[in-house]
């Protein structure tokens, strides 16, 4: 039976056509994946369903009845609920207070949680959604916050539950847990729409998939009949290489070595060796010392103890600039924070950090800068009107290509790379992965931090897992399964001690 039909939905934000006659049809009691690249319009489409945005044109049918939804309140009364990418909980209230908020019962004017509490706990147990009802929300981890959001939605009587990129904040184990919950909900005949841009997840959980591209529905496909290649093609509009081919590269000598690096509580006794022609991947849930480790390596933070050797020379007292000149290139985790200057135009960002190479007696050599910037833009396939365009006009993928290209172009020896493909579309991911491997093939030594386990596994020669500021395990990339990495990332150790080759 058809639970939801949205047809011909269009929505403009000023000049931006977020949705252009998009369609989605969802059956009662199914898990439906809404798949598309960043900016495809997935969130916007669902926000229209949830009454946050109003469609410019188009119709919405619930159980065959035409409806108009002008506010989330109306949506909730129609049994539609949405869990956002950024949670909407109130940090200094307890879990239970957050869930009940808006549906409080009162006995003679006094709040009483009795009935509701029972109902909530019953929900939690039945679906395996573990929560601690009396903890303050600000003190619980992200995974639990998400469970709270889901219970809150169900408590309000959700029949259609929308989840916006729910796995983005979870470890692989938590993803598995979440999927179990979704299946339990499905068994209770709830309808679930899960927004994602990850192919594997879609294949694993969904019954049907609707693919959006540029605000248009590209098609609907039964998950059983889909392959990652088909879905990627629908998402991007051309065929995409999902698995990167990794050539064998002869490892060179050790070029970068960390010895017992510690930084307050953030880093504890980190030691590793990095060879030329090698990619060392750091896996870990975000916030376990990745940022601090990279910033310590490039000189933005001073470790409390320990040494960093570059070509056997201790560089612990060298400035960021000195390390950069020595050949340590840095691609920071957030391109808008430490990576690019959004108010600058493209050529100005092309030379950032390398401006010393484009000057004579302190005066910028503009003709050389323009020439090299044009080459850089061509070389790294950055789609832009030209080097004089503002950097803020670039799409996420092209901005990331600019950031990566800037560092690669100036031929570093060691690359410190964080989240190279975050918020970037599938096509650009493919391209960036190839470029990273090309650097490896040239004998560059690479440190890679990523929240994306697939990325780490695909690119790295060796993997180290960071947990609470320590390396809990290190070994060759193919010696770990995804599950094992997940366990280490969550702070657990494997039951049998495992011999990891290097």
């Amino acid at each position, binding site marked *: 039976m058809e639970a939801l039909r949205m047809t011909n939905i269009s929505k403009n934000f000023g000049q931006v056509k977020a949705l252009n006659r998009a369609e989605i049809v969802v059956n009662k009691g199914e898990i439906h994946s809404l798949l598309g690249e960043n900016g495809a319009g997935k969130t916007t489409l669902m926000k229209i369903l949830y009454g946050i945005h109003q469609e410019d044109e188009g119709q919405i049918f619930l159980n065959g009845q035409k409806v108009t939804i002008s506010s989330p309140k109306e949506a909730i009364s129609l049994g539609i609920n949405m869990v956002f990418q950024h949670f909407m909980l109130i940090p200094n209230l307890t879990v239970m207070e957050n869930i009940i908020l808006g549906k409080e019962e009162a006995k003679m004017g006094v709040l009483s949680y009795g009935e509701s509490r029972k109902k909530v706990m019953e929900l939690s147990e039945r679906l395996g959604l573990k929560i601690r009802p009396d903890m303050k929300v600000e003190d619980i981890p992200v995974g639990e916050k998400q469970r709270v959001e889901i219970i809150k939605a169900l408590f309000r009587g959700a029949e259609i539950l929308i989840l916006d990129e729910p796995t983005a904040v979870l470890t692989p184990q938590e993803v598995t847990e979440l999927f179990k919950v979704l299946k339990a909900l499905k068994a209770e005949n709830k309808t679930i729409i899960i927004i994602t841009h990850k192919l594997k997840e879609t294949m694993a959980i969904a019954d049907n998939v609707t693919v959006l591209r540029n605000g248009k529905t590209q098609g609907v496909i039964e998950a059983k009949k889909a392959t990652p290649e088909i879905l990627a093609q629908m998402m991007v509009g051309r065929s995409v290489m999902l698995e990167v081919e990794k050539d064998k590269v002869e490892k060179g000598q050790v070029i970068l070595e960390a010895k017992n690096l510690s930084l307050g509580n953030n880093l504890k006794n980190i030691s590793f060796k990095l060879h030329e022609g090698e990619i060392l991947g750091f896996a870990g849930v975000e916030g376990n010392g990745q940022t601090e480790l990279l910033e310590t390596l490039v000189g933005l933070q001073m470790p409390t103890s320990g040494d960093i050797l570059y070509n056997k020379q201790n560089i612990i007292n060298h400035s*960021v600039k000195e390390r*950069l000149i020595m050949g340590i290139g840095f691609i920071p985790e957030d391109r808008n*924070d430490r990576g690019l200057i959004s108010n*600058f135009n493209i050529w100005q960002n092309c030379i950032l*950090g390398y401006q010393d190479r484009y000057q004579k007696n302190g005066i910028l050599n503009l003709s050389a800068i323009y020439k090299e910037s044009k080459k850089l833009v061509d070389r790294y396939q950055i789609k832009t009107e030209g080097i004089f365009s503002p950097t803020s006009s670039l799409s996420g993928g092209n901005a990331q290509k600019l950031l990566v290209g800037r560092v690669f172009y100036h031929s570093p020896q060691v690359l410190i790379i964080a989240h190279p493909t975050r918020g970037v579309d599938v096509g650009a991911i493919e391209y960036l992965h190839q470029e990273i491997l090309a650097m490896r093939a040239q004998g560059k030594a690479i440190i890679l931090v990523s929240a994306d386990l697939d990325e780490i596994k695909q690119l790295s020669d060796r993997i180290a897992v960071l947990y609470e500021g320590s390396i809990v395990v290190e070994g060759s990339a193919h010696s770990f399964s995804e599950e094992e990495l997940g366990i280490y990332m969550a702070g657990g150790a494997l039951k049998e001690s495992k011999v990891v080759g290097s």
Partner: protein
Amino acid sequence: MKFWKKAANLVLRFVLALVASGIILYLSGYSPLKAYKAMFWGAISNWDGIALSLVQATPLIFTGLAVAFANNCGIFNIGGEGQLYLGAIAAGIIGAFLPSMPHFLHLFLALAGGAVVGGLWASIAAWLKVKANANEVIITIMLNNISILLCSYLVNYVFKAPGPVPQTPEVQPSASLSRLGTGTQLSTALFLGVLLVFAVWFILYRTKVGYEIRAVGANPRAAAAAGINVPGMMTLALFLSGSLAGLGGASQVLGLHGRFIQGFSPGYGFDGIAVAILGGNSPIGVLFSALLFGLMRAGGMVLDRTTKIPVDFVLIIQAAIILFVAAPDIFKSLKGGVKGARSVAK
């Protein structure tokens, strides 16, 4: 396209400011049209008016450049007034008390003295910002009072010329900026100001240091990650900003008054903020907005002479212009400052 949109927006805001102050004038019983005519026509219709406008614009070029320069590094320098005072008194002392020497040397020393003293004074704020992450807005405001009072002390007790007026002795001719003709107050200070406009433009847009200063101003965290010495650039930018304001004071002393006089500035340093923001923090923009402000000041003086409308009316127009034209941007940059975009990035 974007440029024209911006320009149209600016003109619209400017017209709104004139309308708003016109309404106030009308409600006070004067004819706004007559007032505007007397004012603008008086300031541009004859050589005297034009000269007066340029004289009034000259110090604003310096202080506007000072504020704009610091702003390019993400620093809000409200201390222009204090830096201007110290630059003025330094130039006055060097100009009056040094033994006689060749013209260019003496003039150079007096100007350089004003620039260095103004720059060093501003560097106090830079130092506190870098060392203690103090907010430069508050520091520079407080330094204003200290410096103006310090100048009062110096001119009343240490370097006072004989007579009832608190002023330093007259600057020797060898240290003066020459007048552009007899009977005019215009001096080569104007040329110095215009020269500085181009110098500042060159530094900001054509040199490596300028590039780094603007990188720090636009995104200090990205600048730090690119190996740029963020505290160093902030200190340098504030020093140069203070130097520009100091030069403004020095040029008033050496070109216009011929000596340091207590209370000589009617707030040039503060007007520099409005000038810089109206000029979009670009050196060329500062030149034009300084000319506009100078024109209004001169127009106000004409108004005072030729009509019954009180000269204070010009202050109302200025206030309206600041409110309509510059305040939105001031507010934006203040908000940015508070949010910590301007704190010293690690």
